[in-house]
């Protein structure tokens, strides 16, 4: 029964390590590298927990309770992050980390203030269960998430974190920029980029740590970090067990509290799809499409994290986008780092001085990391969008979705008067952009058949074949390299049929396309093309031969070589004077 709804972990993906990565998901990095990079992830995640401290104070907790609230949150982040790194039926098996969600924190504060923390906890528990159940349907939604839509999701996700990153980067207050914040953040960003691009592998893995230390030095010199923060750190106990300092609330179910939290958590799960796509793509130079099974398991783990937040009465967490930036900057994406980071978080939760120290690091440091991440995600998203062939339908789908999504992000006043219970959806540029893209993608499939046919005759058959396949490819969002191979192989077949006088009339070309393969079927009256093992041609020897007879035989041979090498499968058959050549291309 469990296997039916939550299939066992399976990872059959053949990965090719991208040039800019040092270690990908399944590779064993040295222990020292795993620990160093893991601790840098911990650094970023703990900097994000400032929102937990702020929320605790907002809802009126005593300082000792805030400490326990924070420590308990860190334990849950650690468990969820550790789980993500493991190969289970409920986890991605990738370097995906968990962080408190700012949006969830806002709604948590509102619900806790109006209905009590128990109502917030009850709503979060229910939301976690629903997200886990929904995750199982995601693997069935491959057709709803072609690369262009996941690309739109990434670009809008990047746009949505720009405000978070840039406001911290610039220390923006109203309309005034804090130049000290800019200097600190620029030091950090410059160090991360510089070490990522120019440093050797041993130093590159320390890029974020070095950047943070340099940022901290600049902050201290500018008077932005020092005595005040250290006094607060010193006021914390050395060791404290998280669950003693914070009493877990008794969950209750209040409808008015549950609905907004549930909607926010479903949208947060959609954000996590973007995280999953980025980490998947970062681990494979030959990435072709979203691994929806992995995404489903990632969302399951996201749901488990949320469920644990509910059971412990803490703010719901989501997957960290800032960690993606660190993963790319360091070049280390091995899953062991998630395990190390998770364990480190759980251990650190026992030492409030450490967690408080990191929480109080200057916010421009986190701003710089978020800006780096946003930049990376913009480019990744654009690459995904442009990875498939585009025609006017796809242009409209991409363009309109991007305009809708980005206008909501850039012009929040557009949705200022939207009813509160609809705001989480209608006020989210990411959700509206992605929903628009999904709807338009399905709408524009109307009139696009899975199979098309063309009649080929005359001396323009070759160019007509290329035009036909490019139209089919653009209609279906095919990969341009596959269409190019198919066009060349089909063109070669037609040339050889005419050259060898095997074709006795008009040919028909059928093209069948689904997301995983393109099948071309060429039918014609005449003899079949012989598909024999091709002997190795000695082109150098041909150059010394007398006459052109050898040349013509060589070209026929080359035609066969091209067809066999361009297509993934070739079959040629003849029945009663009619022949068929079938070419299959993996997509």
């Amino acid at each position: 029964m469990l296997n039916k709804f939550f299939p066992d972990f399976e990872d059959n993906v053949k990965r090719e390590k991208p040039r800019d990565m040092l270690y990908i998901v399944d590779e064993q990095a040295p222990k020292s590298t795993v620990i160093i990079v893991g601790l840098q992830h911990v650094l970023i995640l703990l900097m994000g927990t400032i929102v937990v401290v702020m929320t605790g104070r907002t809802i009126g907790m005593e300082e000792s309770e805030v400490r326990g609230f924070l420590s308990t949150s860190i334990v849950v982040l650690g468990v969820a992050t550790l789980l993500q790194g493991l190969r289970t039926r409920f986890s991605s098996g990738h370097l995906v980390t968990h962080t408190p969600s700012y949006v969830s924190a806002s709604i948590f504060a509102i619900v806790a203030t109006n209905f009590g923390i128990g109502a917030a906890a009850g709503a979060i528990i229910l939301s976690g269960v629903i997200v886990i159940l929904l995750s199982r349907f995601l693997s069935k939604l491959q057709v709803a998430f072609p690369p262009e839509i996941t690309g739109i999701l990434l670009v809008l996700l990047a746009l949505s974190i720009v405000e978070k990153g840039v406001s911290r980067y610039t220390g923006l207050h109203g309309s005034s920029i804090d130049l000290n914040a800019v200097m600190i953040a620029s030091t950090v960003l410059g160090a991360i980029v510089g070490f990522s691009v120019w440093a050797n592998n041993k130093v590159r893995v320390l890029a974020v740590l070095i950047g943070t230390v340099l940022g901290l030095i600049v902050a201290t010199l500018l008077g932005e970090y020092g005595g005040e923060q250290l006094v607060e750190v010193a006021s914390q106990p050395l060791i404290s067990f998280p669950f003693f300092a914070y009493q877990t609330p008794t969950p209750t179910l209040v409808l008015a509290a549950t609905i907004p939290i549930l909607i926010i958590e479903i949208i947060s799960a959609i954000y996590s799809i973007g995280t999953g796509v980025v980490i998947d793509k970062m681990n494979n130079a030959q990435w072709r499409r979203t691994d929806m099974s992995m995404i489903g398991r990632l969302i399951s783990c996201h749901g488990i994290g949320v469920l644990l937040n509910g059971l412990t009465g803490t703010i719901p967490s989501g997957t960290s986008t800032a960690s993606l930036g660190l993963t790319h900057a360091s070049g280390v994406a091995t899953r062991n780092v998630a395990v190390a980071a998770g364990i480190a978080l759980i251990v650190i939760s026992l030492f409030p001085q450490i967690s408080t120290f990191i929480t109080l690091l200057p916010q421009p440091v986190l701003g710089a990391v978020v800006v780096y991440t946003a930049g990376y995600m913009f480019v990744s998203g654009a690459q995904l969008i442009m990875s498939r062939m585009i025609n006017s339908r796809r242009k409209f789908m991409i363009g309109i979705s991007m305009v809708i999504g980005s206008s909501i992000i850039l012009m929040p006043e557009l949705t200022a008067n939207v009813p509160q219970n609809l705001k989480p959806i209608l006020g989210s540029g990411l959700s509206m952009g992605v929903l628009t893209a999904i709807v338009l993608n399905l709408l524009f499939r109307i009139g696009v058949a899975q199979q098309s046919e063309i009649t080929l005759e005359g001396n323009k058959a070759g160019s007509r074949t290329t035009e036909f396949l490019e139209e089919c490819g653009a209609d279906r969002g095919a990969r341009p390299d596959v269409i190019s191979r198919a066009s060349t192989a089909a063109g070669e077949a037609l040339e050889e049929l005419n050259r060898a006088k095997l074709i006795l009339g008009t040919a028909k070309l059928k093209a069948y396309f689904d997301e995983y393969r393109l099948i071309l079927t060429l039918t014609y009256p005449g003899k079949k093309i012989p598909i024999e093992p091709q002997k190795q041609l000695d082109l150098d020897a041909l150059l010394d031969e007398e006459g052109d007879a050898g040349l013509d035989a060589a070209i026929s041979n080359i035609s066969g070589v091209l067809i066999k090498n361009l297509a993934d499968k070739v079959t040629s058959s003849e029945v009663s004077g009619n022949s068929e050549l079938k070419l299959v291309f993996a997509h």
Partner: protein
Amino acid sequence: MSIIATTKNGVFIAMPDGRLDTNTSPEAEQLIMAAIENGENKIVIDFSKTDYISSSGLRVILKTAKVLKPKNGKAALCNTNKQIHEVLEISGFLGVLKSFDSLDEAMTFVNS
């Protein structure tokens, strides 16, 4: 298809425009053979305006190399797009004639 032919620094440059396939390769071959007969023995085929090549187009390349060899001539290719490069690679032609990323590099090679 048209084929643009120029001579620069003693090198004959042929630039096929469009497709180089069974329909257009006879014209290209005729042009290049006429140039060789007129004494040109440094040939560069510039594919910057060529979208597509088939085995018929490969025949033109092979014939050019074959005719130049006894005359101690040199030929090179340049500015191939992805499709053309893939066809040259699979067919083994990159071992017969060198392919360069720019016209200048190809001209430097044939002049060396």
